[in-house]
């Protein structure tokens, strides 16, 4: 099992500013059976509302500093966090034991091959 955590602002197309990752991209990885969710500074209720608006059923919505909780709550072989900030995404993700990807790296990866 692979778990992917998405930052929102600067990462997803819905973000403020918009990022390069589309909601279709999220649907695609979700459709392949990955655990997906968001880890953002947006209010948790706003994260849930965003996913609902796009008809995507996610596995978790947490605040930015809660990746360690996500790891504790979900069993996966690999944990990824995709974000756009060195200080608020990359460093905390790596500290929590996640692999980190910049948004453009995420789009370049062949996710369908199970990486």
């Amino acid at each position, binding site marked *: 099992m692979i778990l992917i955590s998405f930052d929102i602002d600067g990462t997803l197309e819905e973000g*403020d*500013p918009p990022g390069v990752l589309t909601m279709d991209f999220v649907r695609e990885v979700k459709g392949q059976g990955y655990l997906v969710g968001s880890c953002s*500074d*947006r*209010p*948790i*209720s*706003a994260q849930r*509302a965003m996913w609902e608006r796009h008809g995507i059923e996610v596995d978790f919505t*947490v*605040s*930015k*500093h*809660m990746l360690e909780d996500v790891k504790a709550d979900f069993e996966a072989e690999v944990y990824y966090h995709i974000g756009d900030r060195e200080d608020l995404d990359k460093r905390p993700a790596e500290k929590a034991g996640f692999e980190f990807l910049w948004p453009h790296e995420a789009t370049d990866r062949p996710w369908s091959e199970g990486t």
Partner: protein
Amino acid sequence: MSTENAPQSMYRSREGLGVWEHRGKVAAVGIGHGPTSRRWDGKPDTSLGAISLIALRRAIEDAGVDPGDIDGLVMDEKTTTGAFWPRGQELPWDVINAYNTTDAPLDGITQLSAEWILKNMPELTGNRFTMYGPGCMSNAIVVAAQAIGDGLAHTCLVLKAWHNLPGRYYQTGANADDAIPGTAALRSVWGAPACYGTAIQFAEYCRKYGKNHDMMAPFISNSRRNGLRFPEGYWAQHRPEEITTEDYKAARWIAKPANLFDNDIPIMCSAAYLFTTAERARHMKQKPVYILGHASSRGQARSFIPTLDEVEAECAESGRKLLEAAGITVDDVSFENLYDGFPQFHQFHMEGIRYRGIQPGEALDFYQTDISITGPNPVSPSGGNIGSGRSRFWMHTDCIQQIQRRAGERQVTGVEPVIGVSGGPMPTGGNFTCWSASPDY
């Protein structure tokens, strides 16, 4: 001719001055806001100057005044606390040259002078008075009120605008240099965020009175709920997101015990009001909102960060000064719109003026009661900076609109909106105004 900051003699910063000599003789009539956005997109028609011209013209139109009859302009030249044009970055000459310019190339982009406004509003043919009320709208308001009362102008525009640039706030200007001059270096060297000082005071407040951070949640939720009913605000326009108690408690710390939602969001925005004499106001388009009095705080802390004792003493003094100037008691106040950026000092302002009789240490308990716009004790019906983004002016717009009964979905219904108080920013340094539906309340 360059515009000067208002002299200290225009501010009422001492106790014992009595009732304001111009009580009820100055009124706010027109209101105008420019479009609100998160950051500037680099285009001429969304620049700081452009949105300010929109705000000013809307205020004039709202008041139903001939622009040629306006003879005063009070504003703040500085338009940011943390978004400075990066050194070495090419100037946006296409934007600069889209307007009539002053000697400062970035005038109208990252600063805003009265001269720039007058050069780009040729319809203001009768202007004879300009002055800066530096820092925020709270300052500009008391300067404009005093100026009209003193006869320096009879019909005056009051303007405050904020710009925000791409990139992170507080990462440019002096913070991007190798060395920081002055005492700011002593705090900056430790990387303390802007809310640090307030967080320290709030922590001490919680220790002293046995309160805790979670008790702020109703205030934050209420503020955002009110802000989402402010059509000119950032959150209402761009990201209509509530902040629930769960959201608030789950947010990450910025400077514990101040978390993410104990901070406001920097935005681009501009607001203008049209002030005039009570006599002239009677013939204008909107219901006049009279200024009963104003007061200023000029507290001096003993150290870099004011202590809780200093904050509480200064806020109490500001409250007394404002009520004294207005010639009322706190029981006459229908609602309060004291400053909230940072929200963890809103209770200092509220307790200082003894809103609804609350004493020091009681505000957080008060927040657990009905503080909504439909209840008998509305707190920050504007929603303030938490409700609509960093402007330091939503509170003033709301006071005027509430009393004019033009606050729309934010209109208070649990009280008669007869007298409102607003002002800030800081507990130990700010300017406060008392607004009234009647000139002789």
